[in-house]
């Protein structure tokens, strides 16, 4: 390594970085800790950090009140399928933008992003009417479609920027060998773009998981995901910090764990073409 650094410097870096990291993480840590407290301990002054009577009561209460696994399953299906379908539609589009660019490529890309700027609540009523007509209310199919469309611009953009970094000569070579276009995409391009596709999948899975407007307003009992689960805990009567924390922990734990395990993949492709 060209840049040599002293152990002292490294220690200082470590100390600062860890302090900031813990500071940023603290609200989540505090929520998780609070979820194991009694309601009285949750608001105690001075605050209790670790030395309180740990209890699982809040989780028991939350589980008894609502069928967590059903919400979880809906979240997984809706976020997963919408992302997957989005990527399948986006790959050919991103391919053609990256390798057969035209004068309008940039405009099309920006136009796609601009569709995300429509304020959702302004079109709630029209959307609700459309969903009634199509019989899609409270179905996972309906939500998969909506979330796919919401995230499609981001997916196309991420993939486009990633594809652009792949040297065109390789594709040329494949074409010389007589590979057809679909073959070229499936056998040559896709394997090379795996890291980019992986991080696109991950980022959009997170975005879909956390989408709280459509998932709340277009569902009732059957298709409701974890965002609806949280909406039944957001302001219950009386002391509620501990129960709220337990519900919150349950809502974010799956995505947090998934995110942590896959953060390397997430980071690798999260460049949006910002890196040359």
């Amino acid at each position, binding site marked *: 390594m060209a840049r040599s650094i002293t152990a002292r410097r490294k220690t200082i870096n470590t100390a600062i970085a860890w302090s900031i990291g813990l500071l940023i993480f603290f609200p989540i840590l505090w929520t998780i800790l609070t979820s194991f407290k009694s309601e009285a301990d949750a608001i105690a002054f001075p605050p209790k950090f670790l030395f309180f009577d740990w209890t699982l009561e809040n989780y028991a209460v939350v589980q008894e009140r609502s069928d967590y696994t059903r919400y979880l399953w809906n979240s997984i299906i809706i976020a997963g399928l919408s992302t997957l379908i989005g990527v399948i539609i986006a790959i050919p589009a991103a391919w053609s933008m990256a390798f057969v660019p035209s004068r309008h490529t940039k405009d099309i890309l920006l136009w796609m992003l601009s569709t995300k700027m429509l304020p959702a609540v302004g079109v709630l*009523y029209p959307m*609700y009417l459309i*969903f*009634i007509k199509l019989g899609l209310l409270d179905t996972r199919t309906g939500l998969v479609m909506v979330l796919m469309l919401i995230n499609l611009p981001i997916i196309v953009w991420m993939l486009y920027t990633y594809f652009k970094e792949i040297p065109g000569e390789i594709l040329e070579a494949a074409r010389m060998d007589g590979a057809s276009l679909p073959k070229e995409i499936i056998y040559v391009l896709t394997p090379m773009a795996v890291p980019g596709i992986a991080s696109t999948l991950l980022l959009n899975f997170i975005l879909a998981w956390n989408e709280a407007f459509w998932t709340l307003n277009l569902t009732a*009992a059957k298709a409701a995901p974890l965002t609806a689960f949280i909406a*039944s805990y957001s*302001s219950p009567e009386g*002391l509620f910090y501990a129960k709220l924390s337990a519900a919150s922990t349950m809502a974010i734990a799956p995505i947090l764990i998934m995110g942590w395990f896959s953060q390397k993949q997430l980071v690798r492709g999260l460049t949006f073409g910002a890196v040359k």
Partner: protein
Amino acid sequence: MTFTTRTLMGACAISAFSAAAFAETITIATVNNGDMIRMQSYTDAFTAKTGHTVEWVTLEENVLRQRVTTDITAKGGQFDIMTIGMYETPIWGKNGWLVPLNDLSADYDAADILPAMAGGLSYDGTLFAAPFYGESSMVMYRTDLMEKAGLTMPEAPTWDFIREAAAKMTDRATETNGICLRGKAGWGEGGAVITAMSNSFGARWFDMDWKPQFDSAEWANTITFFKGMMDESGPTGYATNGFNENLSLFQQGKCGMWIDATVAASFVTNAKDSTVADKVGFALAPDNGLGKRSNWLWAWALAIPAGTQKVDAAKSFIEWATSKEYIDLVAAKEGWANVPPGARQSLYDNPEYQKVPFAKMTLDSILSANPNEPTVQPVPYVGVQFAAIPEFAGIATDVSQEFAAAYAGQQTVEEALAKAQAIATDAMEAAGY
């Protein structure tokens, strides 16, 4: 499993054969209040009785309101039963969006429903929603702090007494606030409290020509009094406190008095959650000697949207959940203090229930509210802490935001009222009044 429940289940298993052919799954949207959550936990008893199963959609009050309103106006048909209040029921009933509930069975004894509740949940004499529980508002106060302040709470206090007592009970050093009231923006939060309070000050929302009245001296007096008292004796940040925040403060012993929903009485006297459970007294909501008290009237009620295919199953659920039988079931399992209050006369005739400390005051409060004549001067609208017209929720939310900003000291009371008047005038003109 106890012997009784086992026989019950056994009996139901047999009757389930006959009911099985009609067994349906109904979807119910409800609010996440304690009594409704308790109702959910008894769903099995309903299923055992009728064979019908229930899917619950439990949401926080504001989210619930936006969900069910969107669904009923767009005719989405997502729910077989909706939990709605006294504000929505007459408006929806008038539009023909709800199934009339005039034909409930004789066992159900609809005549037993408190007239104030039945009246507020009807349109043109037809009942459109059955009350699950009803409430008014009243003073809940700390008997120990009142004694320490050298005062005695009258059964029917005046606002001047409340203000004086609040000042005496306040001890900033120990974080004891003389009085806690809702200041939070939202028509169902701070909006409800200030509107009910304004009635006792002689104010009104609209005159007989539907002209907004925020430019009146009565409204100025109301807001000035409220802000003055809360600044003297209220908790910090009261402009963001709603029902839950205040309940939590009171349970922690940080409020001397709290004027809010009568249903809160069972929470503040419940030793499991409340540190002051054995030191709570009750009194009627205060007045100013003008003939109107500052208590409101509300019911959370179950209604069936017109257009559902499962009217019969939905009716059977409503008959079960708002019945005397359900009250007995909860009383047997969790004690009389935890039954849903305020809906039925028979509950208040029950000697067992009369032993509950807040029973009488709750009934007296409910009986003293009159949605048809809520104000000192005549008004064209029905409703105590609201006006049952479609435009009200929107206007009152905007107005309550202006009031909250005044409570927080970000604008003067005059400015807030002037803006409120402008907002209300504009909205009423837009609606064609």
